[in-house]
């Protein structure tokens, strides 16, 4: 193996996380694909030091996560993160806004997205137990934060930055993110090998169905 690869793996993962947080926390206006770009950097860093199966599952999970974020974009008819959060600030979180079938599709995309994060996280760059890797857990939390903001962001004045200005709503976003991260890590403990591919297959079907539903409403 190229001796510089492990160091480059660390660098790209950190760069990707910084990029994602910059867009998610509203420091820079961004679109859904901007977040996918940061996620891609993190995934690249993981793939460098993962085995072939783990790399393939991580990359497939990235595709499904991009699809989940795309469902939110289709739901609100925009790819701008600010506009997606802004729409939720007026009408409510994506998972609660009617019609019921659209809210159900949003729920499905959120749950499928969290499951895909679990499979994505199941190939950690090292063989150490997940609990002893705070950086790894932080990566998972950043990705779940992206899903939380597009599906379950509470109303907060219409901008990503103002989510933080209201303590209760900030607490709700954090709670959803923490719960989602815990769920993803739980999935990650079991979603290795063939199980991981089964989970990815199911999440792909759910995402496609959710996308079809929100497209037709």
């Amino acid at each position, binding site marked *: 193996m190229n001796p510089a690869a492990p160091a480059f793996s660390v660098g790209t993962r950190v760069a990707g996380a910084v990029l994602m947080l910059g867009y998610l926390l509203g420091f*820079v206006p961004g679109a859904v694909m901007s977040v996918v770009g940061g996620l891609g950097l993190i995934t690249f860093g993981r793939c460098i030091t993962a085995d072939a199966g783990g790399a393939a599952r991580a990359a497939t999970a990235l595709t499904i996560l991009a699809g989940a974020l795309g469902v939110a974009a289709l739901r609100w008819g925009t790819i701008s993160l600010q506009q997606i959060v802004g729409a939720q600030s007026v009408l409510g979180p994506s998972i609660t806004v009617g019609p019921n079938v659209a809210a159900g599709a949003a729920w499905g995309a959120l749950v499928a997205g969290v499951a895909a994060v679990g499979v994505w996280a199941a190939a950690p760059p090292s063989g150490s137990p997940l609990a002893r890797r705070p950086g790894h857990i932080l990566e998972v939390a950043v990705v779940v934060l992206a899903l939380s903001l597009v599906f379950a962001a509470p109303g907060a004045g219409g901008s990503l930055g103002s989510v933080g200005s209201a303590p209760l709503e900030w607490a709700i976003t954090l709670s959803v993110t923490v719960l989602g991260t815990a769920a993803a890590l739980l999935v990650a403990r079991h979603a290795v090998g063939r199980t991981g591919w089964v989970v990815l297959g199911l999440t792909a079907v759910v995402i496609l169905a959710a996308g079809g539903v929100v497209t037709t409403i």
Partner: protein
Amino acid sequence: MGFLYLANAVLALGAALSAGATTSARSRYLQGVAVGGIVVAALFFFAPGVGDTWRTTRLSAMDARLVGITTGCAWLVFAAAEARRRDGRWDVAVLVGVAATSVAFIGGSRWSVPWLVLWVPGALAVVLAWSARTARLLIAAGTASITAGLALSASASDSWALPVPADGMKLALVAAGAVAIVVAATLGGDAARGGAGAAMTPIAVGAAFIVLGGPGRAAGPFASLIVVVAALVCGVVDLLRGASTARWIRPWIVGVMTAAALLAFDPYLISRAGATAILGATALELWPESLGRAQIERGALVALLALTAGFNAIASAALISFRHAIDAAVLWRAGPWSAVTALLPATLAMGLVIGSRVARSREEEAYSVAGVIATWTVFVVAVLIGVFPFGARGTSGVTLYAVAAIAGIAATRVLPRPNVVPELVGRVDVDLRPFAPPRAIDRGAGVAAAVVLAAAVLAVLGFAYEGLRVGFL
């Protein structure tokens, strides 16, 4: 501005004058000529004459960037190969100079006849430099198709103005010609140590993207779908092989970017897609010259990572296809746009896997310093284009990108590195077999290609005469 268009021709002439010198002196001289070519390319890239009219030319910012990157990469590959071989290939330098001049003129030309007359010598130069039979024929066929499209447009409109874009069947002919040239570029590059034609790969790719940004623009989502599916198949083949090889990676990255460029006309999209295709193809042509080094840079280019021009192209294509899918009034119009939108994340994911395999590969050390520096240069240019605006939609992301890059670099010094999965140690993920001596020149294919190009020239002269006769001017 006229000086810039003719500068590469002057360099070609200068290279020819060195034919009588000793091999070592000629080699050093030709490396200097190549450096001159790179300087001219940089001048094109920063384009002081954008918007100026000179004779039948008027250079747009998008075309200036594409011409600069194309010709710069061609001279870079020649310089790296010459620095290693030191055999003073003045004939290759002349061909590169002629082809670079052609690319410069087709980038700026606004009339059909001069466009074609000035492209044909470049196509001929590419055909002469390459050794792959199918690639040579495809260059000729692509040129013939573009000639037919432009000739039909001129006849239909009673004008020599370059149709931007062409329409209907004429657009299909022009776009198909550009795709044929791109396919030729993925086949014809001499990814072989000592191969003289490697410098022509960026020329062919760049010329195709200039066409796709001009008369062949906005072919639409159906064309884009076909090309992206073909590119994905190439990527799947590479992944299934168990060891990556330039033979399948080159059509993958060039195909994905071609699909993006076919989607719609957007100068930002075309320039980023073209830059990524040219730089990616160049890095793969430089692989034999940098064997054992720059694996990460190659892998990052192939992976279409954020912070590089490749991701900008993918994101821009996704934005355009998403908007068309949303705005389409009927399902059958939205369908292809939606399909493209759905496939783009898959191309990104495939790029990550292929690129990570290339990045972590351990290779035999058989590099030249010039080849490694050239690869690093290509990578840096891709990052600069990805991070800095150059005509993009805003500058707010630049600071964030810079902070992310600095944080990543700092992390490599501070944070512990991950343990390597044991099965990766000692594993070879790159197939080095294609790096073999080039094949002998196939004279039959060369003659056939020359015949097709000659026919294209006659057709150009024919419709030029017809235009003059009926008073197009």
